[in-house]
């Protein structure tokens, strides 16, 4: 009976109920988006960092990987020291540079990564193979499109200019041996991978035996934090950064979005709560006589309270379910806006859907729906029966 009465009450004012559900749906969508935003970056960034199986990154002391143009000197000696450690499985050195790529009279600039093909974790080979010898390179789709080349074609690349001689420096003719996808680069960023020694030689004496970054893969069961601390202590040229500390530093930089998510999520919840409270309060005030009659014929006070609480919860949950779909749509749209951040790796999602997020949003809304009905339910159910009936009869 309670359910029937609650349903009848909601259906009696269809427009009002529909508007309330729409209002709650928008609030729910916003809440879901903000819950996704709060956790999405962390999860997405973490999975990106761990995707290649490297737990520790070494950057020039005091910097984050590729945050500056600084490089690590004496790379081969550092690699040897790292490989001598019992807990280190592999070390992948990376040198980053900007190269000029020429083909058929056209010249474009592209990011170049010098890596060791056997241990690299910066790209995935889509077609062909990784570059291993002098004069070989693997290229991503953006660069292939920019220079109109294919696997097997040759390109002229240069590391810089010599203004006095009016010519390129560090020039090479390279053959494209593979088409690759760079894991950490932004969408549409033109890039190519070369063997590390080739890129170091192209950059000249200033980059001899230098790298921008080293990625360290530990053996199974090795203590990551202990290894990080030991490396950081023993090698003064580098800052050792674990996945956890990298996430922490990125979160610190992007704390704005987390705080925005918290504030907007709270506001969404408050708006939904106010909307349902207002609606249920007005609805109860309109039905004081009806409630008094129910109580007069023996319906217990608790049943009245239950009915009103069900009304609030149904509106909240109805809106929440509708808001789930709406939230996923708006999240995709908002994510497409933020994906345009310059330099943001393509794999990073600000709004990452996880079932846990939906349950959190749904739980919060359900709790709000119940709370929203508490005051009007108590107000309606605790009115004196005789007095209320008389007032309603007079009215």
């Amino acid at each position: 009976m309670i359910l029937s009465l609650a349903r009848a009450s909601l259906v009696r004012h269809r427009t009002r109920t529909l508007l309330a559900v729409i209002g709650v749906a928008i609030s729910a969508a916003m809440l879901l988006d903000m819950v996704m935003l709060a956790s999405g970056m962390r999860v997405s960034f973490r999975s990106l960092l761990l995707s290649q199986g490297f737990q520790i990154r070494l950057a020039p002391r005091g910097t984050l990987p590729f945050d500056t143009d600084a490089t690590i000197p004496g790379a081969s000696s550092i690699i040897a020291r790292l490989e001598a450690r019992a807990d280190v499985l592999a070390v992948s050195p990376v040198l980053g540079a900007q190269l000029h790529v020429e083909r058929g009279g056209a010249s474009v600039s592209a990011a170049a990564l010098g890596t060791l093909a056997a241990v690299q974790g910066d790209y995935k080979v889509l077609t062909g193979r990784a570059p291993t010898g002098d004069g070989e390179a693997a290229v991503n789709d953006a660069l292939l499109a920019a220079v109109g080349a294919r696997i097997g074609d040759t390109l002229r690349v240069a590391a810089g200019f010599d203004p006095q001689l009016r010519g390129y420096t560090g020039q090479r003719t390279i053959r494209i041996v593979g088409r690759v996808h760079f894991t950490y680069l932004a969408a549409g960023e033109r890039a190519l991978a070369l063997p590390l020694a080739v890129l170091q030689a192209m950059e000249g004496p200033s980059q001899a035996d230098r790298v921008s970054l080293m990625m360290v893969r530990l053996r199974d069961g090795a203590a990551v934090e202990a290894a990080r601390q030991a490396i950081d202590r023993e090698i003064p040229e580098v800052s050792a950064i674990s996945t956890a500390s990298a996430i922490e530093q990125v979160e610190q930089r992007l704390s704005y979005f987390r705080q925005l998510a918290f504030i907007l999520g709270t506001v969404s919840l408050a708006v939904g709560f106010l909307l349902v409270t207002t609606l249920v309060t007005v609805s109860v005030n309109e039905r004081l006589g009806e409630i008094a009659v129910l109580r007069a014929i023996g319906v217990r006070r608790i049943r009245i309270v239950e009915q009103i609480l069900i009304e609030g919860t149904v509106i909240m949950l109805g809106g929440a379910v509708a808001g789930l779909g709406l939230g996923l749509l708006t999240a995709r749209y908002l994510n497409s806006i933020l994906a345009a951040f310059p330099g943001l790796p393509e794999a990073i999602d600000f709004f990452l859907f996880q079932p846990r997020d939906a349950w959190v949003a749904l739980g919060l809304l359900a709790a709000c729906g119940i709370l929203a009905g508490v005051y009007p339910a108590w107000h309606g159910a605790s009115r004196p029966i005789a007095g209320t009936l008389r007032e309603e009869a007079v009215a």
Partner: protein
Amino acid sequence: MIALLPLIPLLAAQSIDSQPPRHPPRTIAVDERLARDAGLRIGDTLVLAPTPGQAGDTVIVSALVKRPADPSEVARGAYRIRVHLDELQQLVGYGERVERFAVATRGHAATDTALGAIDASAFGFRAYSSREIAVESSTTFLVVSRFHRAIGVITIVASAVFLLCIMLLKVDERRRDVAALRLMGISARTIMRSVVLESALIAACGSVAGVALGSAVSAFVNWHYQRVYRTPLTFSLVTGEIIGIAVALSLCLGVGAGWLAAQRLVRQPPLSLFGR
């Protein structure tokens, strides 16, 4: 001539060692954030080295520099110092190279001419106008701005629905009053106007409260993020134009919601409003 050094890891501040300097120490300017964190003061002696632990040049802190309100650097925690150009070139083995030149021109026309002339004659570098650089470096903020606008649209839609709901509840509450007024001869048009006026007044009161709340929140946001990022940058700006747009939007929504709600009242016959 002063050079800007963006790479703090190239530099290591350490106590003066026992080796006497080969020439009188030169001076550097230190960003006040670094000075505060490292406990540096004017007159302190430091050693600048390209790599931690290596020998370097002894310098004296001669000035503390306030960081400019540069949005492109707000999230970066990098420290900065300013060093004499020749000293930095020598220190990092950069030869006689520089990363960029800043050229002052005599007006817009001269800028365009200079850009063309430099690009035509120079090899190995390109000239950009300050406007081009500003557009390029503000991409991040354009993205954030678009994100804020999208959130704003969602908020406006939510507010509109909320307002419409409230107005609907308000007019529903007064069905009998309105029925009585209609039976007394008050025209539907007058009732409509009164409802719309009421909703406009509610929207106006809400706008005033919203402007006050928004200003307070804006002040808090600036205070909070200026502390978090240690920058004089203004994060939230409440301008007359923004207030005007917000109030106008609020009034439009209020009037629209009132009109829609009033339509429900005046379209029904008075006796039907009485429930007969």
